[in-house]
C-alpha cells in the first residue's frame, strides 16, 4: 500500500500530461476517421506518444508500410538507452520483465531512474505499479479523447511543458552528483550539436555520438587507473 501510494504520487505529473495529451491523440484519431478500437489498440500496443502522433500523419500520407516500419524504428530508437540502463534491475523481475521492457517510455524511465533509492518501499512492485499506472493514464486519455473529444470546448495550452520540466528536473538532480557530470556534459553537448546539424532527425545521430564518447571516456578512465 505504501509502495502503491508512492508510485501514484510519483506518477502525478505524468497523470496530468498523459491524460491531456492522450485526449489530444484520441481526438485527432477520431477526426481522421479511425475507429475507437484502433485508437485503443495503438495506445495499448505501441504506447509511444511521439511515434503515435507521427503514425497518424503517415497513415493519411499513404507512405508504404515498410517505410513506416523504419521511420517508427528511428523515432523510437532512443528507447534502447533506457532498456540498457534498466537491464540489471529487470533481470530480477522474472516474467514481469517483459511488461516492464515493453512499457518503458521516456517518462516512465525518467521517473524510475530518478526515484531509485527509496527506503521502505518494495522496489519490484514499485516498478510494476509506476509502469502500469503511466500506461493506464495514456490509454484512458486516448479513449476519452476519442469518445468525448468534440465535446471538450476549451483548450489548455502548454501542458506538454510538464514533460519538459520532468526531464529537466531529472537531469539537474543527476548532475548534482559530481560523478555524473561528465556523462551529463557529453549528453548535452552532443545533443545540441546534433540538433544544430541534423534538425528534427537528430536523435539517432546524437545516440551514436553519445555512446562513442561515453565509451571513450570509460576507456580513458580505466587506462588512467591501470597506469597508476
Amino acid at each position, binding site marked *: 500500500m505504501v509502495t502503491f501510494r508512492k508510485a501514484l504520487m510519483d506518477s502525478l505529473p505524468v497523470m496530468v500530461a498523459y491524460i491531456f495529451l492522450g485526449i489530444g491523440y484520441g481526438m485527432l484519431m477520431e477526426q481522421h476517421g479511425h475507429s475507437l478500437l484502433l485508437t485503443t489498440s495503438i495506445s495499448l500496443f505501441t*504506447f509511444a506518444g511521439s511515434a503515435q502522433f507521427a503514425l497518424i500523419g503517415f497513415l493519411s500520407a499513404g507512405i508504404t508500410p515498410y517505410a513506416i516500419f523504419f521511420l517508427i524504428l528511428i523515432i523510437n530508437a532512443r528507447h534502447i538507452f533506457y532498456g540498457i540502463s534498466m537491464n540489471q534491475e529487470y533481470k530480477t523481475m522474472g516474467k514481469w520483465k517483459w511488461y516492464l521492457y515493453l512499457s518503458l517510455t521516456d517518462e516512465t524511465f525518467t521517473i524510475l*531512474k530518478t526515484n531509485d533509492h527509496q527506503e521502505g518501499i518494495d522496489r519490484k512492485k514499485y516498478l510494476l505499479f509506476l509502469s502500469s499506472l503511466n500506461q493506464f493514464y495514456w490509454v484512458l486519455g486516448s479513449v476519452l479523447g476519442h469518445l468525448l473529444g468534440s465535446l471538450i470546448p476549451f483548450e489548455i495550452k502548454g501542458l506538454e511543458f510538464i514533460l519538459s520540466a520532468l526531464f529537466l528536473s*531529472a537531469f539537474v*538532480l543527476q548532475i548534482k552528483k559530481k560523478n555524473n557530470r561528465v556523462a*551529463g556534459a557529453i549528453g548535452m553537448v552532443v545533443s545540441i550539436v546534433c540538433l544544430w546539424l541534423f534538425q528534427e532527425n537528430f536523435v539517432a545521430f546524437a545516440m551514436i555520438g553519445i555512446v562513442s564518447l561515453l565509451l571513450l571516456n570509460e576507456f580513458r578512465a580505466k587506462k588512467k587507473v591501470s597506469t597508476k
Partner: protein
Amino acid sequence: MTTIWIVVLASLATVLTRIIPYFLGKRFSKNRILDDLSKVLPTASFALLVVYAFQDVSLGSVSSYLPALVSAIVVVAISWKTENFLLSIFVGSGIYIFIVNFMV
C-alpha cells in the same frame, strides 16, 4: 486492411526498440561494457531528452523562448535547491501554463 498492417508494423518497430536492450544484455553478459554504460547512460539520456523536449522553442521569437526560459530557470533552481522532483515540475509547468494562457 493496409491500416491494420501498418499499425502492426508500427507496434513491432516500437517493441523492437524496447526489447533490443534485453538481447544486448544477454549477448554481452560477460562483457563489462554494457554494465559500465548503464551507469552513465541515464544522465546522458536525460540530457538528450531535455534537448528533445525543448527543440521546438524558437530563439527568433520572444513569445516562444521567454516563457520556456523563465519556467526552465525555475525548474532548475527548485531542483537544485530542494531536490524535490515533483515540486519543481509542478511549479515550473504551472508558471509556464499560466504565462502562455494568460499573458502571451
